[in-house]
Every structure is written in C-alpha cells, then in structure tokens.
C-alpha cells in the first residue's frame, strides 16, 4: 500500500489511485482538504463583492423599513407601520395601480404584437428577416433616457404626434399628451410597448422555429387554415417562451423609473407616479427613508409573487 505506516490509510483514495506513483506523504495529507476548499476559493472574490453590495443592502433595506428615519437624525423603531402606509397612503396605492396599468402596456400588448409578428415571420418565408430582427430589437439596446427624450419630442404639444393628427383631420384629438391627466399614463405605457415588442417577438420566434415542420404540414393536409394552425399547434408549443416573455416584461414594467423620471416626473399631479419613483422621491427628496425602503421591499415581494404566479400557470398548462 502507498500509505505511510504512521497514519491509517486515507479512506478517500480510490482503488484506481493505487497504481499511480505515491506522492510525498506530507502533500497527501493536505491535498484532500485543499481540494475540498478549492470551490470556495473560486467563489470567494465574487461572493465577497456580491454579499457586500447586494446581500447586505437587502438585509439593511428590511431593517430600515422598520424605522422612521429622515436620513440624518436618529431613527425610531415603528414596526410594520411603514408597510401599513404602503397600503393606506392613497399616493402609494395609486403608484402600485399605475404599475399594474403599465403591465398591460409592457407585457400584454407586446405579447399580442409579438405573437402576430413571430407568426408572420415563421410562417411566410419572408425575405429580409435578419434586417427586420435587427430593427425591431433595436429599442432594447438604446438607453432608456434617450428613448424618453425621443418620445417626449413626439408627444410634445407641437410634436409629430399632434401634427400628424392635425394633418389627417383629427386635430381635435391633439393634446399635450404627457401633461394630460387622462392620457399621460397610457402615453408613458405605450413607450414601454415600443421597447418590449422586439424582445418578445424575437423570443417567440425562437420558440416557433423549433416546432417541427411536419406538424404544420400535417395540419395543412387536414385542411387547417392559418388561424386553426396557430391555435392548435403554434400556441401550445411556445408556452414556455410566452412565460419567459411575460416574466421579463412584467419585471420591466414594475421597475419603470428612468422613463417616468425623464418624461413626466410622476405628473401631472400624481397621474404617472410609479413605485420606483416613489422610492426615489421619498428617500432622497422628502427624507422618508423608512417608508421608501418599505416601498422597495413591497415592490420586490410583488415582483417575486407575480413571477411565481406566471411560472405556475405556465407550468400547469403544460399538462
């Protein structure tokens, strides 16, 4: 045996190892421990940074949300009062309702557009597919601030939307879109539709291109039209992609901040305020640090909850 007589045989040595030349006794004793620690060594640098600037802040956010604190003086412990405020404060309630409205514009509308475009691209042998994909995906990579500046000019009182409406004789509909109590939220939401549709389309297209062609041919031999074919074959096959698309866009909707900050600042009045904007406003403009942390935690819980529901529903309909 290779093991030195002074110590009991190393139980971790596999039978095959016997044939290898025996390493020096000292190294052999250290190696297993070192090998066991190797994974942690590789994890360490990343984990330290991640823990310090992600995990610790999460814990601190929970802690802060239990205090009433203005960011300067000593805070007072108030228990769950800040969370009660999230539910009772009309402005905060409104912010969360607005976030739900934005989900329609960021997720539901792009999903419908994406289904249409992906079906068209997948079914017809369309020329110029790479070009179209590049163009429709482009809004995803442009900084949201730039997007906001571009749409602000479109929505401006003398912007292209109003002049377009006037040109086709619908001048009565023209209005300062972002300054309108009724239309500012849909106007902001529509920008989200514009941003999301490319991502959703490309995602769904990837799913559709994996469906075997024979399925479509079989359906066509059975006399199924485009709509039947879509409902019976395409839609069930891309359920997974739809779930992913909804998850991504719903999170994007709930996290809307830059867009609101640059286009409306939550206004007019409170008509476009959203949870992220309330976090920022309360913590850094009003000095309600605890309340702001509570809004952030609530937003996180809502995001996790919706994620869970979307994925549960997506999985259940598989069977």
């Amino acid at each position, binding site marked *: 045996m290779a093991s030195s007589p002074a110590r009991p045989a190393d139980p971790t040595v596999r039978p095959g190892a016997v044939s290898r030349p025996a390493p020096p006794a000292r190294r052999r004793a250290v190696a297993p421990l070192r090998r066991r620690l*190797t*994974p*942690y060594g*590789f*994890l360490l*640098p*990343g984990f330290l*940074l*991640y823990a*310090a*600037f*992600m*995990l*610790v*802040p999460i814990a*601190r*956010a929970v*802690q*802060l949300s239990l205090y009433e604190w203005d*960011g300067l003086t000593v805070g007072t412990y108030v228990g769950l009062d800040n969370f009660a405020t999230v539910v009772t404060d009309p402005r905060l309630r409104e912010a969360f309702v607005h976030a739900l409205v934005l989900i329609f514009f960021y997720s539901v509308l792009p999903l419908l557009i994406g289904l249409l475009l992906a079906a*068209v691209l997948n079914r*017809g042998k369309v020329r110029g597919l790479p070009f*179209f*994909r590049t*163009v429709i*995906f*482009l*809004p995803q*990579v442009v*900084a949201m*601030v*730039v997007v906001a*500046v*571009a749409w602000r*000019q479109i929505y401006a009182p003398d912007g292209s939307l109003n002049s377009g409406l006037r040109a086709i004789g619908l001048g009565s509909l023209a209005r300062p879109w972002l300054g309108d109590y009724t239309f500012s939220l849909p106007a902001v939401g529509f920008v989200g539709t*514009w941003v999301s*549709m*490319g*991502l959703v389309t*490309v*995602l769904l297209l*990837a799913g559709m291109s994996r469906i075997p*062609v024979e399925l479509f041919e079989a359906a066509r031999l059975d006399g199924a039209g*485009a709509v039947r074919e879509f409902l019976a074959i395409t839609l069930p096959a891309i359920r*997974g992609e739809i*779930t992913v698309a909804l998850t991504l866009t719903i999170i994007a909707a709930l996290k809307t*901040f830059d867009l609101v*900050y*640059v286009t409306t600042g939550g206004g007019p009045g409170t008509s476009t305020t959203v949870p*992220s904007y309330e*976090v*920022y406003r309360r913590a850094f403009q009003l000095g309600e*640090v605890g309340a702001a*942390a509570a809004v*952030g*935690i609530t*937003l*996180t819980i809502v995001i*996790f909850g919706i994620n869970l529901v979307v*994925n549960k529903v997506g999985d259940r309909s598989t069977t």
Partner: protein
Amino acid sequence: MMISRAERSANYVILLAFAAFALFPLGSILAAALGPESASVAREGGGPHWENFATAWTQGQFGRYMTTSIAVSVLVVSVALVCSIMAGYAFGTMRFRGEQALFYLFLLGIMVPTEAIIVPLYFDLRTLGLTNTIWGVALPQIAQSIAFGTYWMRAYFKSSNVSIMEAARLDGAGTHRILWQVLVPIGRPALTTLVLLTFMWTWNEFLIPLVMSPSGSVRTAPLGLAFFQGQHVQGTTLLAAAAVLVALPVVIVYLFLQRHFVKGLIEGAVRE
C-alpha cells in the same frame, strides 16, 4: 411551405408597418439632431448640420460624462467578468457542500430590483465616504453583474465538454490551468456575450449613478443627458444631438455584434 400571394403581401405590409414603428422615434431624433439649430441657421440653409454634435458635446460637457461612463463600464465589466468566470467555474464543474443554497443566493441578486437596495446603499456608502466616487457608482453594479454573470458562466461550464477537462487533468493541469488556459479560450463566444450585455447594462444604467453621486461629480452619460434636458427646455436640436451621442456607443456595438445581444438577452432569461 406554400402560402398564397395575398397572404404574402399582407405579411410584408404588417412587417413593414412595425419596422417603421420601431424606427420612427429613433429616426426622428436623428433627423432633429441634424436639423438647423435656430431660425437664423435655418435661413442660411445647407445640408445636415453635423456641427450640432460638436456644439452639444461642448455645451453639455459630454467629454467629461463620456469619460466617466467609460471608466465605470471598464471597471464593472472587468471586475465582474473575472469574478463571474471563477464563481461560474466552481458552480459548473465542482461538487461541494452548500452548492445549491449558495447558487440560489446568487440567483436572488438577478431578481431583486435595484429599487429595493438603492436606499440602504446610498446611506451606507455615504457613511463609508464612497458616494460621489467612481467606486460608489461601480460597486453596486459590479454586484448585480456578478449575480447574472455567475448564472451565465455556470450554464456555460455545465455545457462544456467534460472530456476536454479530463484530458487536461491527465496532462497534469491544475484547476486554475484548466480554467484559464483551456476553458476560457474555447469559451470566447459565451464570454463575448457576457461582456457585451454587462457593458450595455452599465452604460445605460440610470438609477444607481443618479443616487450615488448627488453632487454630480461622477455623472455618467445618460445622467448628463437628463441634466442637459433640464437646461434646454426650448432647443430640441442640441438635446436630440446629445441623445444620439449617448445612445451611439451601444448601438454601434449592437449593429456589429447583434447576434450576441439577441442570444444573450434570450438565453439569459432566468427560468428556474
């Protein structure tokens, strides 16, 4: 597949309409950027006014903001990349105690929104004297990028060829050698995608630089643009020119390497 002529035409109409819709806001801001800056310039006539970019660049101090953005991006991308490769290697190729729990801990960071951590980040880093420094802006983004990067690299290492690793091990290569001299070189596509995504997210980030540098000493390009907008309520030309400048770096990279962006954003979608 056979489809009728009418359906084919309808398809093209739909696609062209949406392509136009996708391009219109970007096209109109580009057009505005190249337009005459004022009525007097308009009277002189002339073609596209390229000088608007130079004017916006100097008036908006974009030289400074772009430099900051580049510094933050380089810092975040390089540190997060090295950390993610190492952590992803451990999760993807090794078995160890607490592996599952630790991995879920990393996943948490992908899903927790910045809004949840921005409040304590500001007040705690202010105590440490890190606000208004490049570190205050970069470190939180490094942490976020490590979360995604680890997830991404783990998937790559899990799919990479076990026999290559075995062969390298039999040749006497240690774990470090196998990683840096075998797996990293052949993993260039996966690494490129990760670098591009991290760069895009860092360049476009808004909330973290906004909050972490209240004095404006570490203002990145997107913030510079928002600030510039506050000053130029009337003139849309220079604002449009500035917007084009801010968007340009990522858009150019996207146009050349779009496969990576599309692939990364789609495959990177967390689904556990």
